[in-house]
């Protein structure tokens, strides 16, 4: 459903994405791992449309989306979460998710009816909050949620846009052990219903969740395969796993 061909991105002399060929199949959870500075977030940002590649193509659902902006890709079903929490802090958790529902529903040039009174936005938003386990916290200002809850909210907003492909950039970043375990459990539940790209540092989580894993080192994809194959791959061990 997603195909990337010979993607290149330079920052000055640094080649952050070095001719990546990459593919995500319908229904799979595809993890991207790699040491710090390997260019994982740069890669994800190009998939989501936040960064323009210097060359190469990104085909999503059979359509070349390379020239499309981030909002356009989001409306086509590519939803991302950010490594550094990105929410609307001055709005309640429910408002945050309702906005995502609204983004998906369209019809945002309506000027009169109070948006907070619209069941068509609030009900689906409530369901998503329940799904991620934030149902009780719907009325709390996003700024006042605990860090782990904000990470959940981040995922909830991505889910509320009813994406065809979820790009999760380190959803467990900065979480305590207990929180990340809960998040892993939650993502395991999502797996069956969603196609996901998961960028993650936590190797236990990656090997638990991923159907396939791609390894990124210095902007290059050095291996793609099933978890067992990746674990056994000598090149990967040398570049990454071995240093653990």
């Amino acid at each position, binding site marked *: 459903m997603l195909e990337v061909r010979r993607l290149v991105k330079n920052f000055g002399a640094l080649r952050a994405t070095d001719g990546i060929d990459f593919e995500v199949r319908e229904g799979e959870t595809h993890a991207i791992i790699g040491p710090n500075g390997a260019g994982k977030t740069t890669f994800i940002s190009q998939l*989501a449309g*936040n960064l323009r590649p210097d060359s190469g193509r990104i085909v999503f659902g059979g359509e070349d989306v390379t020239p499309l*902006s*981030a*909002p*356009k890709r*989001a*409306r086509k079903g590519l*939803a*991302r979460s*950010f490594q550094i929490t*990105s*929410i*609307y*802090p*001055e*709005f309640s958790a429910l*408002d945050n998710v*309702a*906005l*995502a529902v*609204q*983004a*998906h529903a369209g*019809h*945002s*040039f*309506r*000027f*009169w*009816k*109070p*948006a*907070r009174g*619209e069941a068509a*936005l609030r009900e689906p938003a409530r369901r998503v909050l329940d799904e991620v386990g934030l149902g009780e916290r719907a009325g709390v*200002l996003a700024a006042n949620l605990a860090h782990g809850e904000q990470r959940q909210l981040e995922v909830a*907003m*991505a889910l*509320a*846009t009813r994406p065809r492909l979820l790009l999760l950039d380190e959803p467990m970043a900065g979480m305590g052990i207990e929180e990340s375990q809960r998040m892993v459990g939650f993502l395991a539940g999502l797996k069956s219903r969603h196609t996901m790209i998961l960028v993650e540092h936590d190797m236990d989580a990656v090997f638990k969740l991923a159907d396939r894993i791609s390894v990124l080192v210095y902007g290059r994809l050095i291996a793609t395969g099933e978890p067992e194959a990746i674990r056994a791959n000598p090149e990967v061990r040398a570049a990454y796993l071995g240093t653990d």
Partner: protein
Amino acid sequence: MKRGFIFWAAVIVILAALPPAVNAIGQPFYIDLVRRIMILAIAAASLNLILGYGGLVSFGHAAYLGVGAYSVGILAFYGITNGYLQWLVAIGASAIVALAIGAVSIRTSGIYFIMITLAFTQMLYYLGISLDVFGGDDGMRLKARSQLGFVNLGDAVQFYYLCLALMLVVLYLIHRIVESRFGMVLRATKSNEARSRAIGFSPYPYRLVAFTIAGAICGLAGALYANHTNYITPGLMSWMQSGDLMFMVILGGIASTAGPMLGAFALVLVEEFLKGYTEYWPVILGPLLVLSVIFFKRGLAGIVGKPHA
């Protein structure tokens, strides 16, 4: 909710009772003063829509005050005094100018946005000065006040109540807009643009529409202002006028319904009060404004009620 109701009831009662009260004590001058404040409150409220709720720090909002006033003045100059037509043109022309300025400005952000909105308004200011037919630098007297039929704008009290009604309507209208789907996108995008883009909102069209609505509403204030002073000058479009509007919004409390109104009252009343004591009033007013911004971060509205995002 209840507090808000009491607040607005008090505002309406006090402002409605003002004309007979000041006439009774023989100070009709206050009718003119408060009328001017209410007109400026409409302008400030329109700026608040983009500055407070949209995060667009326009330093050229007086442009639309000018376009609205000149629309009325120029039509009157050519003998068209029908108020409905004049005000429609004032609102329409301001909307078109705002659309054009916004279309260019909103592509920039931060300090560039501030400077470019200022630059456009300066252009209009100098255009006003260069229009010798319409009085150039000196401005011109309105040939006749707008003819509205049911209210006589020549009557200070009738005009006052019209301004009061229009101010309340504008404040309510903006309140509805910012609570609507459109308003939620506008406010959310101010809060976190990257997040809005990630869920599928392109900020540009929302900001441009808000900018145009704000221009149109300010155009109405301009049409009222021309009738209020019975005179139009390019000075209405000066950067100081834009600065005054910004101060009203910030002083009153950005992103609040009542803020711009409270800010307009506070700024003009303090100014008038200080003028009564010394001709060096700006020396006192300046530091006063700085202190108020430092100590009342949420503005006067923050004292009256709770904020909403």
